[in-house]
């Protein structure tokens, strides 16, 4: 038999390949490096073990943390409830059960897509221009994209959990609502409640980011501390945040251990609780009055629209955005498995859990500012900062996956005499590679949306252009930039879905 062996990397190797990009990033950092900030970074590191315990500082940080939590909990509650409803309405299965047609779901999905394509920070800055500084601006900025993101996830879950019992129930003459309650809700309860729980963590991080850009809360305090090099204060805030995140995580786990179904009623009640909590703080929660005149007045002059579109060199700006996304995606995906392969052990799992937790905790713009102390600004630096933040998320996913799969496969390989690293490569890392890559492609969408944040710090990409346009009240340019970033995000989503399909078919075709 003539042997034709094709050369293509097997699935377990693919998560490691993006890690090669680190060589290029390190090269750029060495080229652009300046030693000026090393002593400052040492002070930053020292601050971790000597946080400020000044009661005035702690009181201010605690108030900031509460504001962040109120914004996060309210936006989480609102987006969860609305997201579940819209998700159901935008699922084909719902319409098929109710009316025997699918087209309303397709139309609704198309209408909702642009809303989720705009990053919460951009929503925040836009709403800030119209409504002024108000608690509702931050809440709505998070709730709008989160609702639509939640609706997309719920619709996908509904459509991929179609029970074979549904036609039987319909055939038996059950009403559409009875069919849904019996055939649809039970298999969906677990994944949906898990996703709702996960979104709370995301909402806290988003509220923090909005704070970094001046919308109040702990993010503002952390940003001011870092910019004034008050690292002890910064670390007091970060430790507080870490404790709050751990407490929230424990609360959600406890809630889930009681009953997974409890999470939706809790999400429904949480905005009211948060509203009561928020009124005790310095958070303006009276419904704001919109000042449309400035925005609309600017946009009425349509002749400016075309000229505004020509003010930016779009290919360059888009190239910068895509480049940052690629670098960040490679760093975030490749770094966790690579580190695990360098030091494969139980102790390494524990230590990396702490490192990824810390990277997740520090908002990406602050990571970028810290890196700027080591090197001159560049696209690679922006990508690295964003990649390290998302690496924190990917690292957690990898460690959780490996813990739930177990280390039995590594022991099997070791028992055959395989070296330790090889045992991990062919064992746990191979076991989780498919799920990890699927999550990585989803993460690439999030990273693409997040380039808006890092661009604002790094002076590159669409984020930077948007900041400039907002500062000069150039609304036509703002409109163009938002439009282009929405299109880019939707293209990224579509590419991500194709990549996910490719992982599956690649694994099938190996």
């Amino acid at each position: 038999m003539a042997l034709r062996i094709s050369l293509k990397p097997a699935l377990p190797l693919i998560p490691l390949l993006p890690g090669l990009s680190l060589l290029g990033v390190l090269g750029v950092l060495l080229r652009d490096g300046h030693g000026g900030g090393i002593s400052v970074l040492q002070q930053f590191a020292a601050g971790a073990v000597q946080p400020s315990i000044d009661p005035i500082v702690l009181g201010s940080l605690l108030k900031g943390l509460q504001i962040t939590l109120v914004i996060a909990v309210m936006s989480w509650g609102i987006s969860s409830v609305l997201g579940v409803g819209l998700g159901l309405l935008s699922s084909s299965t719902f319409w098929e059960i109710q009316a025997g047609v699918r087209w309303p779901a397709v139309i609704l999905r198309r209408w909702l897509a642009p809303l989720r394509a705009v990053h919460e920070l951009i929503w925040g800055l836009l709403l800030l221009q119209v409504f002024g500084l108000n608690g509702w601006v931050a809440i709505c900025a998070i709730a709008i994209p989160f609702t639509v993101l939640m609706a997309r996830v719920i619709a996908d879950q509904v459509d991929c959990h179609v029970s074979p019992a549904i036609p039987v129930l319909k055939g038996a003459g059950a009403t559409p609502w009875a069919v849904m309650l019996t055939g649809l809700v039970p298999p969906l309860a677990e994944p949906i409640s898990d996703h709702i729980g996960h979104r709370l963590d995301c909402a806290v991080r988003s509220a923090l980011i909005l704070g970094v850009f001046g919308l109040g809360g702990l993010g503002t305090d952390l940003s001011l501390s870092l910019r004034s090099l008050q690292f002890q204060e910064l670390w007091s805030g970060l430790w507080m945040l870490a404790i709050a995140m751990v407490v929230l995580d424990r609360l959600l786990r406890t809630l889930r251990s009681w009953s997974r179904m409890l999470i939706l009623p809790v999400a429904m009640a949480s905005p009211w609780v948060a509203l009561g909590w928020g009124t005790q703080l310095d958070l303006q929660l009276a419904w704001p009055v919109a000042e449309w005149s400035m925005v609309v007045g600017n946009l009425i002059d349509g002749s400016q629209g075309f000229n505004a579109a020509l003010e930016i060199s779009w290919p360059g700006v888009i190239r910068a955005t895509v480049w940052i996304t690629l670098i960040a995606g490679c760093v975030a995906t490749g770094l966790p498995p690579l580190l695990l392969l360098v030091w494969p052990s139980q102790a390494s799992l524990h230590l990396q859990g702490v490192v990824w937790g810390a990277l997740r905790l520090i908002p990406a713009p602050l990571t970028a500012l810290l890196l700027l102390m080591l090197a001159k600004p560049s696209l690679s630096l922006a990508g690295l900062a964003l990649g390290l933040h998302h690496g924190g998320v990917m690292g957690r996913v990898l460690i959780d996956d490996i813990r739930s799969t177990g280390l039995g496969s590594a022991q099997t390989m070791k028992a055959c005499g395989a070296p330790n690293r090889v045992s991990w490569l062919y064992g746990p890392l191979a076991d989780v590679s498919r799920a990890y890559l699927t999550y990585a492609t989803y993460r690439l969408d999030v990273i693409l949306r997040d380039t808006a944040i890092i661009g604002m710090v790094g002076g590159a990409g669409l984020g930077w252009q948007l900041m400039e346009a907002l500062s000069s009240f150039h609304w036509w340019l703002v409109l163009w930039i938002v439009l282009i970033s929405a299109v880019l995000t939707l293209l990224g989503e579509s590419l991500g879905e194709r990549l996910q399909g490719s992982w599956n078919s690649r694994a099938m075709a190996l």
Partner: protein
Amino acid sequence: MTALLELHQACLGQRLQPITLTLRADQRVVLLGASGAGKTTLLKLCNGALSPDAGSVHWCGRPHQQLSRRQRRQIGTLWQDLRLVEELSVIQNINSGALGRHGLLWAIRNLLGPLDPNTCLELMHQVKLEADLLEQPVRELSGGQRQRVALGRLLHQRPELVLADEPLSALDPSLAEDVLNTLLLLPGCLISLHRPDLIHRFDRVLGLRGGALVIDAAPNTIHRDQLEWLYASA
């Protein structure tokens, strides 16, 4: 003949009472016992997947914990759940049996593109696996095909002693015969089975009941009543 594996008063909680046992090279041993009698636990003690609470397990005179990589690969295991790498193809899984003889770079090379196809084809022929399955992902194979991939991987490891945990369960009679024949061609083996009718194919019979070693004898000295008692409820 020199002793390969020696267990001295090795025990593990409630699952296995103190057992003293020596396995020699060129000896084919069958392990019998009802479900829950401790067969899998004993095999795991033998391959080092479990450590005894008390007593000792030695391979070629050295405690399991102190074995070198070269010594570890001399013990091959055919696991009941096969433990194939689901994301890899047949050839890559068979090659993974040779990981004990190579380093990280060879392992990465095997993931980049399958290595040494001719050796793998020979092994596949030996275990009666069709050659056109060479690059097929193992997750797409039937139970019997997967069993033979695991056997091919074991053969590629070239162990001196094979430990097999119920390798014939879930196989049709013809395939079970093929698999048993292949295992019995290996230098030495300890195979757990639920098939007392096959004991005449082995040199030695071990019987476990309630975690205790109650039979250790040549097949021709074992009475039918002893086998029935082994499987009778306590």
